[in-house]
């Protein structure tokens, strides 16, 4: 009887099942596997029996405001300047090379598809990701997280879940704001520069030309990825920030280390995820090529 008790469930599996089990444990032993586990735990905790619609919504909205609203001025300025630079460079360069019909698709590729989401992700990782790490990390150091756990309050639900959802929602809106303000206020600033310098850079630019070019270049895939990319990036940033924070050893010097690690690794993971997502664009492109030929 006692012997039977010692046999765990995994020992009753088939050979294939055992290999699968070991692979799962191997992955769970790695930081990336643990981050994925943390992410799914945070999603799962939204539906736990302790859910309370009012407080959850309030926490998530507060986190969204914290992540999104306070970063808005800097994001706006970065977007405007970035948009200006891209518009001037693209139009002057493409005009010189006689490729002025690809202006719209180039602006879409640079601003809407690639660098807009990435720059937004960097800004949010630098500001909200780091503050999330410091906040949770200090709680770990003061053993407040342990106290939460001993009270039966799931720290993943109480700390990680609002950060994750707030981060994703804020990232989504910030990305749309970034792209629109990069194009619209970038256009206005370009016009201002043309007006002030007396068109020394020698480009012809009108709003109708720019807008029709961009609207023609936008495809359905772009709209899908405008929604998908920021959500994925936001999930990566907040999960990584919370993971780094929750694994701090009990040492005050580890908090700044974990913060910098959180930001740097967020950058890395975001760029990697961007590359992976770009594969879908390539597939899309090849399909279009087939239809053209």
């Amino acid at each position, binding site marked *: 009887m006692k012997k039977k008790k010692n046999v*765990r469930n*995994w020992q009753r599996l088939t050979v294939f099942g055992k290999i699968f089990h070991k692979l799962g*444990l191997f992955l*769970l*032993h790695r930081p990336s*596997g*643990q981050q994925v*586990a*943390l992410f799914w735990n945070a999603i799962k905790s939204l539906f736990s029996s*302790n859910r*309370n619609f009012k*407080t959850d919504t309030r926490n998530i909205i507060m986190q969204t405001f914290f992540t999104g609203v306070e970063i808005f001025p800097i994001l706006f300025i970065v977007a405007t300047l970035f948009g200006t630079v891209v518009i001037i460079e693209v139009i002057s360069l493409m005009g010189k090379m006689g490729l002025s019909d690809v202006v719209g698709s180039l602006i879409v590729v640079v601003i809407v598809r690639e660098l807009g989401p990435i720059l937004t992700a960097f800004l949010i990782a630098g500001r909200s990701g780091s503050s999330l790490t410091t906040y949770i990390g200090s*709680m*770990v150091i*003061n*053993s*407040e*997280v*342990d*106290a*939460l*756990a*001993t*009270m*039966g*309050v*799931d*720290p993943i639900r*109480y700390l990680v879940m609002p950060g994750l959802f707030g981060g994703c929602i804020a990232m989504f809106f910030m990305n749309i704001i970034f792209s629109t303000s990069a194009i619209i206020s970038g256009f206005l600033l370009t016009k201002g520069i043309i007006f002030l310098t007396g068109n020394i850079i020698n480009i012809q630019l009108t709003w109708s030309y720019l807008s029709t070019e961009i609207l023609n270049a936008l495809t359905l895939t772009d709209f899908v990825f405008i929604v998908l990319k920021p959500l994925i990036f936001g999930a990566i940033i907040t999960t990584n920030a919370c*993971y780094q924070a*929750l*694994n701090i*050893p*009990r040492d005050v010097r580890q908090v700044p280390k974990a913060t910098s690690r959180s930001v740097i690794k967020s950058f890395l993971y975001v760029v990697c995820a961007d590359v992976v997502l770009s594969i879908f664009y390539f597939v899309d492109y090849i399909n279009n090529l087939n239809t053209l030929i």
Partner: protein
Amino acid sequence: MQDEALRLENVSLAYNDLTGNMFSQPRAVSFFKHREDDEQKELIRNVNLTVTRGETLCIGGGSGQGKSALLRIIAGLVRPTRGNIYYFGEYIPPERLTALEVAKRQVGLVFQNGALISNLKVRDNIALPLRYHKMGSPEEIDEKVKMAMDLMRVREEADMFPHQLSVGMQKRVAIARSWAMDPKLLLMDEPTAGLDNYNRRNLLPLIDNMRQLFKTTIIIVTHDLLMTKELNCNISFLHKKTLTEPHSFDYWLNSDSDISRALFRDFTNTGSSPTHFINPKL
């Protein structure tokens, strides 16, 4: 079996396992780790302990012997290297032994530093677990919080933040927070450390009340040996990595063991300071 609150069977803890918190290890990786059998690397070795319901037990010992680590094991914050733990007669296998799982069985822990959530007021700190677990309507929770604050005499500080309170006050709020959860088993880490004599004398009747009125099982880790006598409970010591049998204060005072000689020397000398609690004839 029915009336036991907690049973530890051959619990051991290696130094290496002390650092892991519940997030650093996924639930079932213990099978990857090789067993640590080196006695030198173990903080606690083969601890056996049985606590019956309603009993109060003190755990003493010199500093660095792993008293707090033992309490963290019981609370589920640290996973023991070996050994079985039974809560109220129910065995929890090691891969499921987390603080959340233990907390479901109504085990409360009062930390040495209080560990209050620093961005919440005292009132919200006490109400947080009640609200999270939906223990009653908002009015009932308010009532419960007021009762807890009255019991620990922190009513005037209800709207203060933890950093505005003194250490003793924080500790009392932490005890109030644990009490409000109606724990069946309450673990206290040094409840009297850092308190002055006046606050200490206020705290002891509160612990006594809790035990008398609510039949809470209490385990107190302390170096304050006189507390044992005042609460009239048994004390066992962590000595040479293992836990001794629980005995009363007087037994230890009169016995001729290493522990008695090391820790009770002050009390047996009639000339030293805390002897006003002790019968000089002893």
